């Protein structure tokens, strides 16, 4: 099985040196997983702000070099790619950003972002050909070319702009789309349309999607599999049905139980303690130990391995140390395969 994207023990350290001290942030901590080429799927990377999920997406696109470990695209190490290969990577792994307002240069009409990739990646040989491509990609995300082209960004709504960004990514004929919080700045009533555009891309056009988000509701709705990140490390991985419906890692459990559900029958349980957050203890073992309600002695000094308490799931937590340890380090083996 060929892998489209493959991360092997990827680690990213950000160092900020100041006069007084050197501060080091471990943004991504030893991440290994892959995205299959054969079955395009939607994989969510979920976590709170500062968990390293956006850094991970930059590493996967080759926009940041890893501090340790390697990222492979179609079997090629990103660090050893030639110019042409890099350009192909740039085209085939397309980002969609969070802010549909900031993504447009106010100086240009929106046509600018659609014409650029055609020109730079030589996607069409004539003006007519370019126009056909643009029209096609707009229609795929539910926008009418006549009503969209020739306008300035401020003349479109947030939802339209975000769909236009999807159309832009689509033009590049990508294999993977990295969608970093694509709906968090869009109104609730327009969210569904954008998410369904992503679904169409995945189902009908066979594009793999990485959905980077803090919102487990939408992650559950559209994704097949999910990686839960905490403080740079993936603490739980597997199919969304397993990870979100029956979370095993105490952090995932905390996340899921904190979701405000729109139902009076599912009112938040648990307490309001924030004690652990106010303490600034650090753990050399599991990063979640200082906040973990079920912390054990071993957690403070040893990093947990990935255990597989059941199918389609791996969890990095000593609570499950009686379960078998994951065979190969690639978390993708826990993923549910899409038919």
């Amino acid at each position, binding site marked *: 099985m060929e892998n489209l994207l493959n991360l092997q023990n990827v680690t990213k350290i950000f160092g900020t040196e100041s006069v007084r001290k050197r501060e080091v942030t471990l943004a991504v901590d030893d991440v290994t997983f892959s995205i299959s080429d054969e079955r395009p799927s939607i994989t969510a990377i979920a976590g*709170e702000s500062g968990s390293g999920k956006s850094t991970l997406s930059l590493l996967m696109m080759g926009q940041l070099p890893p501090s340790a470990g390697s990222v492979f695209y179609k079997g090629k190490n990103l660090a050893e790619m030639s110019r042409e290969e890099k350009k192909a990577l*740039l085209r085939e792994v397309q980002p969609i950003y969070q802010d549909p307002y900031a*993504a447009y240069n106010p100086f240009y009409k929106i046509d600018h972002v659609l014409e650029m990739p055609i020109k730079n990646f030589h996607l069409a040989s004539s003006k007519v050909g370019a126009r056909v491509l643009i029209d096609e990609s707009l229609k795929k995300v539910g926008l009418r070319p006549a009503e969209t082209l020739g306008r300035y960004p*401020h003349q479109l*709504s947030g939802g339209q702009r975000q769909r236009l960004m999807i159309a832009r990514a689509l033009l590049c004929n990508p294999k993977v789309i990295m969608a970093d919080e694509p709906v968090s700045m869009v109104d609730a009533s327009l969210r569904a349309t954008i998410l369904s555009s992503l679904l169409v891309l995945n189902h009908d056009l066979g594009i793999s999607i990485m959905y980077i988000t803090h919102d487990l509701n939408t992650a559950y709705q559209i994704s097949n599999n999910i990686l839960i990140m905490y403080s740079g490390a993936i603490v739980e991985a597997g199919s969304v049905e397993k990870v979100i419906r029956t979370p095993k890692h105490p952090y995932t459990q905390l996340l899921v139980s*904190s979701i*405000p559900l729109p139902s*009076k029958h599912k009112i938040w349980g648990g307490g309001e303690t*924030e004690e652990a*957050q106010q303490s600034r203890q650090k753990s050399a073992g599991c990063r979640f130990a200082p906040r973990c309600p079920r912390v054990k002695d071993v957690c403070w000094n040893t990093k947990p391995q990935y255990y597989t308490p059941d199918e389609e799931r791996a969890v990095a937590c000593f609570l499950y140390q009686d379960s078998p340890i994951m065979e190969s380090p690639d978390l993708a083996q826990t993923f549910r395969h899409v038919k």
Partner: protein
Amino acid sequence: MTIAKTKNKKASSFNTSLVIGITILSLIILVGLIGPLLVDKNMARVGAVKPNLPPSSENYFGTDSQGRDVFTTLVLAIPPTLRTGLIAGVISVTIGLVLGLMAGFFSGGADSIIRTFSDVLVAVPALAFMILVVARMEKPSIIAVAFVVGLLTWSGTARGIRSQVLSIRERSYAAVARANGETELEVLFREVMPNLLPLMMASFIGAVTAGIGIVMALEVLGLGNNVIPTLGMMIFWSQRFSAVLRGMYWWWTPPIVTIAGIFIGLFFLSQGLDRYINPNIPQNQKRKRISPAMSKKRTSEPATAKVKEAQGVLQVNNLQVVYETAAGTVKAVDDVSFTIQPGERMGLIGESGSGKTTMATALMRLSRPPAYIAGGEILLEGVDLLSISDQDIRKIRLKEIALMPQAAMNSLNPVIRVGPQLRDGFKAHFGNIDQKELDNHVNEILRKVGLRPEIVERYPHQLSGGMKQRVAMAVAISLKPKIIIADEPTSALDVVVQKQVMLTLSRLQQELNAAVLLIGHDMGLITQFADTIGVLYAGKLVERGTIEDVLENPYHPYARLLIDSLPSVEGKRDLIGIPGLPPELLNLPSGCAFHPRCPFAMEICHSDKPVLQSPSEGRQVACHLYEKYERLPSIPSIRVDHLLAPSEPIQEG
């Protein structure tokens, strides 16, 4: 959102400064261009005419004491003066642009060299330096002087350009351009450069002004070229031959008026450009927070407002809040009425632009221009907050009605420790109270919001987002208000911390038995906290009822579609969105504002605004359907493929 949009569009609205600046300057430039062709140049030579003549029909501006015709000299003096400005401006902006781009693009070594160089330049006193330069010249040349001025003044431009380049390269649209295959150099020229245009224009005007000013100053000091007439030389000659003392006003007035005209023109031009580039800078805003009609109501009533008969702790009647924009008046809150009972937790849900934050500020009577309250009543236990004096409302705020704002980091003063900020509220309301008593109070409220007392010594930046929000909560509850307006208090927080903060607010609400109005866009969050809910759409309250009832059976089609569109971890289902676009407040649809998006829209919805009515006990809805039906008929299914095929029309606004 809609307002900002329209403002951009209306940038073309009449710009007086720009027109004045361009008029004055083009007049002077025109004289400078055409004048020299029409006059007899010999008249400007020394001894060409009889000296010391006052203005006459032959010598329009008279003659000077050396026998030059002043009018002719003036006409001939304008082009060289303008030329110095132009040369200085072009050189300064070109150098500034090139070096600024290089510094911003290469950063690192090139950046520090350029910055060091420009720092040194800033320290050079331009005029003094120029005096030295000119003194060394055998024959001072205006062009050489302008050139040196250009060389001296580029550093500001370079710094400005550099910081703009650095900031724009980090913007999202630069990242998009990279994803579109642009190289860094292309990003610089295609994405960054066009956005530097305003800065370059401003720098250019600045350099032109400096060029003209410095050259003129040198000339007035006698360091000019005695042969070529310029405005500066004319002033120099007139003072050298004591024109003022000799009462020869016709000699010195014309050059001074012209030079003043040039500077005034440049000033208006730069002001006008600034306004054209940043149309959102407030201009001449009327300092009113309440409409004239409302202030009349306020003054006509006695100092102590009458207590009216009112239900609940807070009764809002027909509240109207409008924004005055260049494009017209926008009703952000339109005729909204509701009542909150003591101890009630009401949620107010709406999307961006629905008027929810405008409402929150209006309820505190804190609306600021361009927003003002245009009508209605806000009855807090029967006292109309809109009719009492500024002094009285200050006493009521915090003590009776408190606000827990959206972004706590912005509501806390970053340079003051937490402790003093908490004490402020007590001090303002109780005057001088005992220090120890004050500390006890502060510790008590900190404990209540789940913070440790040590926190008083910390600055806001030393707190986590959740802790800051708790401090804001501590401020809000410090005087045990009867009602707390919580405007998206957790929108900046992660989901785990959000839950903890909301649970604390929930406990405090019970302890104080205060009513809470929780404003937000997250139906889940509001459901978790509130007992009742109000749904806002385009500034109107369209539905009101208990959370259970509204979730179970939403009456208003918008509420129904909004609830159906919520993704949930409870189970996968088809993604259903609301078709169409959010309304533009400046250009609201006729009749019911929701009708263009409504699957049940009838003819009447296009023409008549529905009023809030009560189709069943404890429920209110503003929808024409309920004049016909008791409850909402089943919704025609709107499926994903439906949504994707026909796209919504784009409204021209």
